């Protein structure tokens, strides 16, 4: 069994064991088993980083074997300098989520932990898959655990949110499925993604393929105007669900653009780059403004996620080195920061059971340690230098200026909005005098919460101060990618 298979199947195996064995009267055992599972799953991904050949842009740790011979589908895995980071990120966030759920989830603990571990394995599978059907299988299968997570442990309107999540994303992916089958037929019977990269296609065919993939990935990212599912789902999902959704699931969409849409249909990608850039800018600016007026903390962070992911797609479609690497760094940074923001809201929600900004005020007086963390993550969300949030946005803006000055200027304004809504929320929730009795009775974070936020804080600061390891590893893959999409396939 290769390292990638290990990274995919370890969490799934642990999840299956939890589902099969766990009972609510053994919650303690279940929690420890889940923790062991997520730690082991993280540990098995470490060699992917240490043994990674940073000089190469080729797929590494490749595993290939026949899976469904009838359709020439292979169990084909491999990662390049881009995917490796998302594998690590997924395993890391899963660990944090398991810690975050420790004493918060008391009902059906085994199903909760099991669902997250299985979800983790499936998402890693999406990042590693080099076969179209394998990719689709993992991509779609993630819907099942997430649907259950939202529906079982969610808020008052959880059922609406769960259906909206499932049907919205399914709509997009089904069109992608038709595109996958079309590519299979035109390529003479192969689902190999790397072979599709080299497949020559006329422009109309490329456009069809591009927009079919767009339907799937734009919903997942989510890009304006198909982002409306995200705020509803985030608000109703349990804390862990929101964290995983924002930190990783949204990246599946952006990753899809890099792995499918752009390399398979490069000419269409160039042809319609204006559209993608326009949608991204609307996300960055308009959705940023929408975020400012939210009353609900989770909704605010959800809209801010849409805006931040707008930077990612913007970076990708300006087709230069800074833009694409910037978008990727932003994806990783947003994984840490948005996950942390949702976990912070979860900490407050567990105590007060309200997500309304108006229910809080002066939290700093009763929870000083927690407020310090919240401040750090809020600053990272604004894109303050020396935090993870800064690096990616800065690179994207530089890339945008290189492409077109006005584009850069428009993107840069978003930083102002980002700072405005994040800081304003921070001020209203954490600063000022103690607002009410609930806030007065708050207790500061315990060791478990400290550990969970501390892990994320280290990651956010490390990426902000010294992002070189990240960019070094992805550089060969990014330049190879740009070279590929720069060559016409017509």
């Amino acid at each position, binding site marked *: 069994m290769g390292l990638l298979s290990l990274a995919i199947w370890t969490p799934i195996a642990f999840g299956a064991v939890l589902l099969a064995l766990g009972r609510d009267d053994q919650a303690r055992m279940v929690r420890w088993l889940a923790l062991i599972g997520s730690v082991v799953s993280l540990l098995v991904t470490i060699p992917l980083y240490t043994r990674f050949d940073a000089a190469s842009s080729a797929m590494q740790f490749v595993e290939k074997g026949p899976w469904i011979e009838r359709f020439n589908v292979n169990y084909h895995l491999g990662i390049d300098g881009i995917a490796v980071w998302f594998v690590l990120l997924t395993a890391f966030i899963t660990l944090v989520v398991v810690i975050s759920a420790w004493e918060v989830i008391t009902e059906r603990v085994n*199903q909760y932990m099991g669902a997250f571990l299985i979800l983790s394995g499936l998402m890693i599978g999406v990042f590693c898959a080099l076969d179209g059907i394998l990719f689709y299988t993992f991509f779609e299968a993630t819907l099942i655990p997430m649907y259950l997570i939202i529906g*079982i442990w969610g808020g008052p309107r959880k059922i609406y949110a769960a259906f909206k999540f499932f*049907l919205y994303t399914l709509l997009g992916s089904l069109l992608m499925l*038709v595109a996958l089958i079309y590519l299979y037929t035109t390529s003479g019977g192969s689902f190999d993604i790397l072979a599709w990269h080299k497949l020559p296609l006329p422009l109309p065919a490329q456009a069809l393929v591009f927009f079919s993939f767009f339907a799937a990935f734009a919903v997942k990212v989510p890009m304006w105007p198909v982002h409306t599912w995200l705020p509803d789902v985030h608000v109703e999902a349990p804390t862990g669900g929101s964290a995983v959704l924002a930190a990783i699931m949204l990246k599946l969409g952006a990753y899809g653009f890099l792995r499918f849409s752009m390399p398979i249909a490069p000419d269409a990608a160039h042809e319609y780059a204006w559209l993608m850039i326009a949608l991204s800018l609307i996300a960055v600016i308009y959705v940023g403004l929408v975020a400012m007026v939210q009353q609900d903390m989770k909704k605010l962070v959800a809209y801010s996620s849409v805006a931040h992911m707008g930077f990612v797609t913007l970076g990708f479609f300006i087709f230069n080195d800074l833009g694409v690497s910037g978008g990727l760094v932003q994806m990783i940074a947003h994984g840490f920061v948005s996950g942390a923001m949702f976990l912070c809201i979860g900490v407050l929600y567990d105590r007060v059971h309200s997500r309304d900004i108006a229910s809080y005020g002066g939290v700093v007086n009763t929870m000083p340690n927690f407020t310090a963390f919240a401040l750090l993550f809020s600053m990272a969300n604004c894109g303050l230098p020396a935090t993870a949030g800064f690096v990616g946005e800065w690179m994207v803006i530089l890339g945008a200026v290189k492409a077109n000055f006005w584009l850069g200027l428009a993107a840069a304004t978003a930083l102002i909005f980002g700072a405005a809504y994040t800081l304003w929320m921070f001020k209203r929730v954490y600063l000022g005098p103690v607002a009410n009795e609930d806030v007065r009775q708050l207790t500061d974070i315990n060791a478990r919460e400290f550990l969970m936020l501390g892990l994320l804080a280290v990651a956010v600061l490390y990426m902000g101060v010294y992002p070189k390891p990240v960019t070094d590893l992805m550089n060969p893959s990014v330049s190879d990618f740009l070279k590929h999409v720069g060559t016409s396939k017509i």
Partner: protein
Amino acid sequence: MLDQSSLNTVAPEIILLVMACVVAMVDLGVKTRLRGLSYGLTMATFAVVAYLSASLAADKQTVYAFGSMVVSDAMGNWLKCFASIAMMVCLVYGRPYAADRDMLRGGEMFTLSMFTLLGIFVMISGSNFLVIYLGLELLTLCSYALVALRRDNEVATEAAMKYFVLGAMASGFLLYGLSMLYGATGSLDIGTVFKIVNSGQVKHQVLVFGLVFIVAGLAFKLGAAPFHMWVPDVYQGAPTAVTLIIGSAPELAAFAISIRLLVEGLLPLAIDWQQMLMILAIGSLLIGNLAAIAQTNLKRMLAYSTIAQMGFVLLGLLAGVVKGGAAGDTTLAANAYSSAMFYIVTYVLTTLASFGIILLLAREGFESEEISDLAGLNQRSPLYAGVMAICMFSLAGVPPLVGFYAKLSVLQALVASGQVMYIALAVYAVMMSLIGSFYYLRVVKVMYFDAPITATTVSAPADVRVVLAINGALVLILGILPGGLLSLCKDAILKTLST
């Protein structure tokens, strides 16, 4: 004509017939509530014929017997094997339910299911219009009787009546169509009819006229719109154990006779029947999926879901021949027909498990057939909720469950034809399955998100529990490793087409 090899070919049918009579006799002396001896004999017979069919299928030789009245080929033998296993599973699930409802007062249920299976076998083996018709009548007559098995139950009797009247009409359609073909070609033998039609000496109009009736008859048996009216009423009205029987194995037989009549007999008319199937498929997908949304009765919802799923099977059947292409393009044809075969086999597998859950939750005096009866099943029994969820996600076509690969292979067959019309059909089917996923998800929602109405734990006999767990696991395992069954279907269809 009665040579040894002919008799060997129909050995499974002979065994079934003899044992059905034996069980009917033996049952006279059986007194137990669950009728253990009759049950045991029936199951043993089914196991033997399943094994025999599988070993015949493994032979992979196509043998015509009794002057090519019957044929034994890979496709038919595999379908027979699956049908026997499906029947066994039906009886395992259905026996406690039937005993609770006084349906086992006599052993008719076992005898009738054996005759049902015999009908299925004859339909699958038939290579002659009359033999196929005989098998069909045997199957449907047994089904009417099975539906009416609770003779003091009004709903069941009403369903039996409806089923009988509409079923007789459909048989009439089919018979009329067959007699038109006989009149035009002068032969009842499928192979001869093919040759005569292919030679182009017969008037096209007469053939198409007969064809319309045949397709209508087949559509009725498959439950495709607009010949679907009986499906919801019969599914809902029949005792659930019987719904399970008529909703599973006979679908395999209906698929087999579709292949025999349309492909083996009337392939030269493919352009004509393709258009008919297209209309049926479009209608089935639309009506099945939309009507299922409105249902509150789980059996009725699954009935509409069946109609929608049959739409996919029809899509697989019609994708085999391309307009303007050579009618004998075996690669394309095998691709399409095997996708339909895979679809129907996996559909039966999934149906068995989902009706199994309904049977399991039913108790004496309580049918558990409303969707809301599943409320909070996850809290009452995570295992059964898990099995049902797997089935629902599979029917919705979500990977990594087997239903996805079934849909994938049908869509692939459509796109591979390279026709714009077919690609449009694929997109349409995909959109309809999106609508479909809504009502499947609703079942999952009720089981997982709603609070349970009763706190009673679900209890089931050990055999039901084990079979149900295996059945659910198969839906998942065949989803993760679908390669074997996909290749099996393709090989079987290739063997059948090559003769």
